[in-house]
């Protein structure tokens, strides 16, 4: 039972990673995922200390306290710049 975590734009390039899988029983919220990713190494910790990062669960923008469950797709990305 896993959660798919995807990264976009500058964040993806900083991490040199577009997608990662996390065991669903290890996290309860978006904030938990962020904390877990930040613990990966010093570089990831620095990247995820950026408070401006946005997050989405299953294509809906959410805040860090939103709960996650198995098979969710959770995304992290910088503030958007389209249009």
């Amino acid at each position: 039972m896993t959660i798919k975590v995807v990264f976009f734009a500058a964040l993806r390039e900083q991490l040199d990673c577009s997608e990662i899988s996390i065991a669903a029983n290890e996290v309860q919220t978006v904030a938990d995922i962020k904390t877990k990713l930040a613990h990966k190494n010093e570089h990831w910790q620095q990247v995820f200390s950026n408070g401006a990062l946005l997050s989405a669960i299953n294509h809906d923008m959410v805040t860090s306290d939103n709960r996650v469950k198995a098979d969710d797709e959770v995304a992290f990305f910088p503030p958007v710049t389209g249009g």
Partner: protein
Amino acid sequence: MPLTHSTAVKISIQNQDFNLQDEVNLLEQDNAVDGAVVTFTGRVRNKNAGLTVSGLYLEHYAGMTEKSLEKIIIQAQKRWQIGRVAVIHRIGQLVIGEQIVFVGVTSMHRQDAFAAAEFIMDYLKVQAPFWKKELTEQGEKWLEAKQSDSKQAQQWDS
């Protein structure tokens, strides 16, 4: 997606360019109820923040992009009496002067069409997951989101 009735919505995320007149025709054809058609087209500028820009690369989050645009359009439909809505956004590599984005709204009266088109554009700027990477004389650079865009979108809350 053909626009066949007065509430039709078209959302397209595409690499290829679009033709303004074709899009206006889609909004207008067999649509005698709406007297107002407002369109906005965004293009690639040659300068940004003092740097000469040679082009742009546009990335998006497939799936979420369409969903977020749908939600924005539904909000606009709740706030104003509007007919057809079309939103086109290009992705990939773009050069100076190329069209990036199109928003078209029809309505019985101009006020609703103007307001809804501006609302959709303002919300697209802060909610739809697109990211621009600029190609400048100093190399490639991801654009930073602008505070002024957030403020502009927040104005609709009051």
